[in-house]
């Protein structure tokens, strides 16, 4: 069973050290996402249609809203460090203006600088100490990975934007999904509400957002679940019902396959860092 070793939330987003031996299905995040190998067997991650290695020499960089999945090699768990970096935090702390934190390439071949940052950051995450150092190290690691992802790229699309909102039907559906997190919404009904057939709606939604409506809705549900687990005293069962699940078991299945570990496990290890924003 996959386990959480340490989870830290802060102004930067979140950082987690997981022991994973179960697949994480195709999902997406609002944040920029980095997956690093720490120990154990190698694994793979599928992102942007490419299969990327997660091993001692390779990490994976996933841009915001890019669908991706994680695949362990076997039963032995891989220990990995995963970062979810808020684009605004990255923007505040960098001297450039790459708002979207869009990575140039998913596949990163690690250099010694990044490996050094990675080792130190993992130690700090396990210590739960040195929060000021943690934030600056986290930024250095993210920035080094961001720059590496664009190194050698012939065309620089860093300023490229997502045009998720340029079709009014997609815009409306995004709003409807947002308003109905926690309700049992049928995709058929959603498509009808924006005046499209289901196949046309799925095609248009994917074209503009890069993800399917289901993945988008799951992302919002995962966000809400994490927020509740971290900030409320509700039981996992209550959170499950509030999010529209029929039982705690189905919520646990959903959470494990989208986030990687069980919700109770997540709550057990997660803590909030109080690092300044932006770093001074």
């Amino acid at each position, binding site marked *: 069973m996959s386990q959480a070793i340490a989870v830290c939330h802060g102004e930067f987003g979140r950082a987690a050290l997981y022991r994973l031996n179960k697949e994480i299905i195709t999902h997406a995040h609002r944040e920029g996402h980095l997956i690093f190998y720490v120990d154990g067997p190698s694994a793979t991650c599928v992102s942007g249609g490419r299969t990327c290695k997660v091993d001692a020499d390779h990490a994976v960089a996933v841009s915001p809203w890019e669908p991706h999945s994680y695949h362990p090699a076997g039963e032995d768990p891989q220990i990995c460090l995963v970062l979810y970096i*808020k*684009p*605004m935090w990255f923007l505040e702390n960098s001297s450039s*203006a790459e*708002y*979207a934190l869009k990575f140039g390439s998913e596949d990163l071949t690690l250099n010694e600088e990044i490996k050094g940052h990675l080792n130190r950051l993992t130690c700090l995450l396990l210590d739960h100490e040195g929060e000021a150092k943690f934030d600056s190290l986290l930024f250095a690691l993210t920035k080094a990975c961001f720059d590496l992802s664009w190194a050698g790229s012939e065309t620089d699309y860093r*300023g490229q*934007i*997502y*045009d*998720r*909102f*340029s079709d*009014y039907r997609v*815009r*409306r559906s*995004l*709003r409807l999904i*947002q*308003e109905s*997190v926690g309700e049992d919404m049928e995709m058929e009904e959603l498509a009808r509400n924006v005046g499209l057939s289901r196949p046309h709606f799925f095609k248009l939604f994917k074209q503009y957002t890069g993800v399917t409506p289901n993945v988008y809705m799951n992302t*919002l549900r995962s966000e*809400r679940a994490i927020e509740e687990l971290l900030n409320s005293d509700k039981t996992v069962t209550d959170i499950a019902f509030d999010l529209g699940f029929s039982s705690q078991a189905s919520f646990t299945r959903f959470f494990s396959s989208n986030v990687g570990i069980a919700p109770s496990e997540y709550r057990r290890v997660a803590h909030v860092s109080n690092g300044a*924003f932006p770093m001074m």
Partner: protein
Amino acid sequence: MTLITYPSRVHFADGVLEEALYSELERIQGSSFLLVFHKDETDSELMDRVLGGLPSRTTQEHVLFGDTTNLREQAFEIAETPVQPGAIIAFGSSKAIEFGRKIRYTIDRASGMRPVLFGIPAIDGLPDPCHRKIESKQAGLPSVIICDPTVIMGAGEGESREAAMMSLIRCVEAYLSATYNPPADGIALDGLSRCLTSLHKIGEKVGLDLCRDVMAAGLNAFLSQEKGVGPAQTMTQSMMTEAPNAQRAAIARLVLPGVLRNRAIDDQKADVLGKVLSDVKEPLAEVTRRILSNVQMPRTLADIGVPHKALDPAAESVAGQSGLTFLQARAVLEEVYEGA
């Protein structure tokens, strides 16, 4: 002594509206918002986009307005209601953002709580500083400004031209203001250059490049007005109380050249401004007149619909400002009232 304050966080990028709004609202961790917009904006694309940028599980109150003549009184009425938003999100017209500013001020006065003000401008840009300084300084500038050029992609040629002209007038007056504010001067000069680029392109080219320039010029004009409002704008504002449906840019463009001929102007500044505006050395008033008259708009104040009785109060409103006397200001207005 000069105090220079630029307390706003500005986002400026194509398509950034929703992500920037979401991130900023998440950053302030507010959960209740007051949306301020003109009634014409109801169910518009911009409104859809603003709603799309709000985090889920938040509460929203909407303030629609149609009458723009008594915003101050309307703001006081809102402050007396139990509405205590963590943030005011004013979007669309400059009047909406001005209204948001007034609402924030009145809530602050009534309850001591100052909500964060978001300004999301459309084609007519951001509002002038308030004539009552107390509302235009720290209490009034938006805390967050989100400029997304894609918002104005659908603007018409006339609207774009008016916006660029108004920005040019604001930048010229801000730059010439005697107040010592080097950052505002630099911003004004960049704004001017963008205005000129835009005015050349409007009608010939369409696309995001043009929208970016028009919006950047509007933002720069707004920020440069940290130095205050110039006499041409003050007189324009005064005349608009008698002709509320008139186009602001149409009035201001007639008034500015005459003001430049009569007001006190630092030689060095006139020289710099002349170089930005034209390759040919000619008097500043002439250059601006030539640039501003290149646009199809009414040629006199009378054609615009300004009543003659509006001239005296307008001239009085600037008497003693920037070296202008009442008689000089009055003569400037008379000259463009029915044409020389």
